[in-house]
Each structure stands twice: as C-alpha cells, then as structure tokens.
C-alpha cells in the first residue's frame, strides 16, 4: 500500500524540478532579488538603530536573518499552495487531475505541497548560506532547529490548505494570499523580534502562523536551547499542538470546499 504512493510522490518531485528548470531564470532572479533585499533592509534597520543610539548587535542581526529565512521559506509555500489550485483551474486541468489520479486528491495535493516545500527549503538554505557569509554571522542547524522548522512549515501547510480550499470556491484569491504573506513579514516578528510587545506578542504567537516557530527557532539557534529544554518549557508541545490544529483545520476546509464545488458542479468553472 505504501509503495503505491511512491510513484506519485516521485512524479510530483520530478514535476517540481521540471517547473523549476523551465522557469529557472525567474527562480534564480527571484532568489538574487531576495538576496539583495535582505541586506538593504537590514542595513536600514542598523542605521535607524544607530541613529537612535542603539547597537543592533550581531545576535539581533542573526535573529533578523533567522526570521527572514523562515518567512521566505514559509511564504514561498504559503503563496504556492493556493496558486496550484488557481493555475490548474484557470488552465482547465483541475478536473483532469482529480479524475485521472488513483490517489485521493488531498493526498496528491499533499505530495505536491511536499515537493514545493523541498524546493523552498533548498532555496532558503542557499540564501541562508550566502547571507550568513555576507554578514559574517554564525548560525548552526541542530536537530532541534530542523524539527522546529519542520513544525512551523507544517502549520503553514495547514493555512495553505485552507487558502487552497478558498481558491477552489472563489477561484482567484491571490490578493488575500499576498496580503497574508507580506503582513506576516512584519507582524510575525520575522524581521524584527517582537517579544517586547507583551500581550500583543502572546496573542500573535498563539494565533498567527510562523510567529511562535520563529521565536522558538531563535531560542534554539541563538540561545542554544535544546530539545529537552523546549519540552520542559512547553514550547515544543505547544508548537506541535498549534501546527497540528492548523493542519487539521486546513485539511477540513480543503475537503469541505472540494465537496462543495463537486456538488455544485463548479470544479471546472473559472
């Protein structure tokens, strides 16, 4: 049974690679653009801090870089997930995909999301290597860091599924997705840690995707927290619970949207 999933997963990975290869100029230029944008933003922030008499230290710069990379990774997936539905629907292939695949659509879609996530991870990793070198920062990826990154990404998958569900019903939700993605850059504390905001941070941590994950990842990569400590202080179980909740809610919305458009016969409509 497990093996029957395998060819489909491989074909989705292959598809993602072929898409990347076909549009490699676009993919590379986007990566270069973000590689230029981050230093510009960080230098602006450093200059603001210096003019206000505050030293934006190396650890704060590292915190900004960690947040930026996780934001880049997560929004890369978050924006792509509903766009997969929008593209298939606009090209008129959404019905074909559903009818021809022997796997349930949600499983097939999940494989596609995994393929996209792997690509985004590789891009974020490359960007991270270049930027840590440019700013002379030292960041180490421990097993705990990998786990937190995965859990944060899993929560974003859930939001992506929910948005994909909305895309099935409303067809084009690109503006909503972009708004969520760019809003996340500021209010998730991705660029500037927002822990000092007290109750606002606590609310965002529990409700807004990425916020908690970025905060825990900073604790792991800068303050050296290990898994045992994360379990003891409740961060890891909390993030696990949050990501699971987001995944379940997203999955439910995706499936109910799929059922709704099937019942109304709107699957092939764009």
């Amino acid at each position, binding site marked *: 049974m497990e093996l029957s999933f395998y060819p489909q997963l491989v074909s989705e990975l292959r598809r993602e690679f072929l898409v990347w290869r076909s549009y490699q100029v676009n993919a590379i230029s986007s990566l270069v653009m973000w590689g230029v944008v981050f230093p*510009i*933003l960080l*230098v*602006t*922030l*450093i*200059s*603001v*801090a*210096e*003019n*206000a*008499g*505050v030293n*934006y230290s190396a650890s*704060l710069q590292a915190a900004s870089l960690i947040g930026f990379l996780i934001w880049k990774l997560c929004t890369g997936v978050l924006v792509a997930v509903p766009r997969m539905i929008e593209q298939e629907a606009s090209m008129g292939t959404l019905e074909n995909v559903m009818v021809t695949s022997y796997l349930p659509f949600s499983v097939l879609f999940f494989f596609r999301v995994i393929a996209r996530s792997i690509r985004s991870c590789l891009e974020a990793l490359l960007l991270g290597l270049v930027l840590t070198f440019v700013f002379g920062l030292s960041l180490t990826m421990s097993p705990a860091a990998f786990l937190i990154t995965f859990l944060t990404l899993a929560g974003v998958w859930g939001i992506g599924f929910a948005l994909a569900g909305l895309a099935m019903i409303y067809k084009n939700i690109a503006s909503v997705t972009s708004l969520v993605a760019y809003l996340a850059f*500021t209010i998730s504390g991705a*660029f*500037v*840690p*927002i822990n*000092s*905001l007290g109750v606002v941070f606590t609310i965002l941590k529990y409700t807004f995707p990425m916020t908690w994950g970025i905060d825990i990842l900073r604790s792991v990569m800068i303050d050296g927290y290990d898994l045992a400590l994360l379990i003891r202080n409740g961060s890891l179980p909390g993030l696990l619970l949050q990501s699971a909740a987001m995944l379940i809610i997203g999955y439910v919305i995706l499936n109910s949207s799929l059922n709704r458009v099937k019942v109304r016969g709107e699957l092939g409509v764009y």
Partner: protein
Amino acid sequence: MAYTLNLIRTELRKSLLFGKSYSVQYIADHFFFVVGFLIMAGLFNVATDGAYTGDAQLGSLIGYLTWRVAAGIIRGIVGSVSNDAQWGTLEQIWLSGSRPTSVILARAIALVAFFTVRVLFIALFIVPVLRIPMSFPLHTLPGALFLYLLTLISPFGVALILTGLQLVYKNVEALAFPLATILLFLTGALSPLDGISVLYPLSRFLPISIGVDLLRDLLVDGVSLSTIILQPAFLGLLLNSAMYLGVGWFVINWAKGKVLAHGSLAHY
C-alpha cells in the same frame, strides 16, 4: 510664459480628473502609504527598544514623504508616456503645437503639486497618530520649500532618462517601480546613512539623498538656511540636481531624435 502656464494648468486639471475618476484607488493608495509608515515606525521602535521617537520619527517622515513625491514623479512621467504610447495618443501629443519637452516639464510640475498635496494628507494622518513633534519655526518653511524643490530636480532627471529609454526601447515602465522603491532604502530616506561604509558614499550620487539630509538639518536640527547654503553638501545637491537634469535632458533629446528619425514613435 502664458503658453507654459496653460500647459501646466491643463496637466494639473488632468491630474485632478484622474484623481476624481480613480478616487477609490487614490484613497487605497493613501491608506497604504499611511499604514506602511506606521508599520515601519512600529518595527523601528521595537528594534530600538523604544528609542525611535520624536526627532528620529520626524527625520524619517521627511525622507519618506520626499521619497513618495520623487517616486510619484518618476512613475508618473514614465507611466504617462507609456500610457500615451499604448492608447495611441503619443504621436498626437508630440506632433501637436506643444513641444514634447515642455509637455513633460508641465506634467512634472503638475505631478509635484499633486503629490505634494497628497503627502501633506499622509502627514496629516501620521503626525497625530505617532505624536511627532513639529517643533520647527514657521519661518523655516520657505527655505524648506526651496530645498524640497531643488531635491526634486534629480528625480525629474531620472524620469527624463527613463522616458527617453521608454520611447526608444518601449516597455521600460516596468523598471520605474522597482527603481523608485529601492530609492527609499538606498538614499537614506528612512534614516540617515552616515557612517555606513559603502552605502553612504553611494547614496551621495543617488537622487534625493543629499536633499533629504539638508531638509532634516533645517527642520529637525534647526540649522538655518544661510548656514546650509554655505555647506559643501548644498553644493553637492546643486551638482547632483544639475547632473541628473543634464543627463535626462540629453537622453530625452537623443530619444526624440531617434524615434522621429526611425518613425517608431507610435510603435508599442
């Protein structure tokens, strides 16, 4: 003179009619720039542990609003020529009695007036929300206006360069948006870049950077206009403005000659 004034009046009327026709878009745009600054100010405040207040915010606001007008001029002029080319009205304008460069100049003056009013409305929202102290004396305002207009000459030069390239190579408008956006960060519009090794010397060659610094000297630090005029930075501003205007003038005239000779003015 009457001819130029008439052109300016016409362009101003056009801007107002656009504003009326697309009022929702303009309101959304206004909201976006207000919220954009508030979010940035919030981030800076958090990043500096609350030290980003008062004069620092005023300095940023001066740079932000000046950049907004500069970006508006660049995108407005290039966009208007691109729109004329797409609508097929570019040839009519260029072959009418008005000199093309005079039309562009009138358009730039109208855009400066239009965007200045718009950024004043942006300031009207931001200043009370952030409680930014406007402690500069009123008699500094004419000097500020003089420096402000001088600062906007170089974006006008950039707009002329891009317009010239648009005429010859078409579809250059796409460059105007990223170029105008990146100026916000590279010119030190949000925060002075003094002491940042590569960026500070580089910013001296970019539009608006010196002008924004001088405006901050006048309105935030209380340096008098007579002192500013004697500073080397003021000479730098004059040279910067003259350089961009000169290069822009050269490019637009070169492009004008080229498209008329090739008969490609109406092509898009």
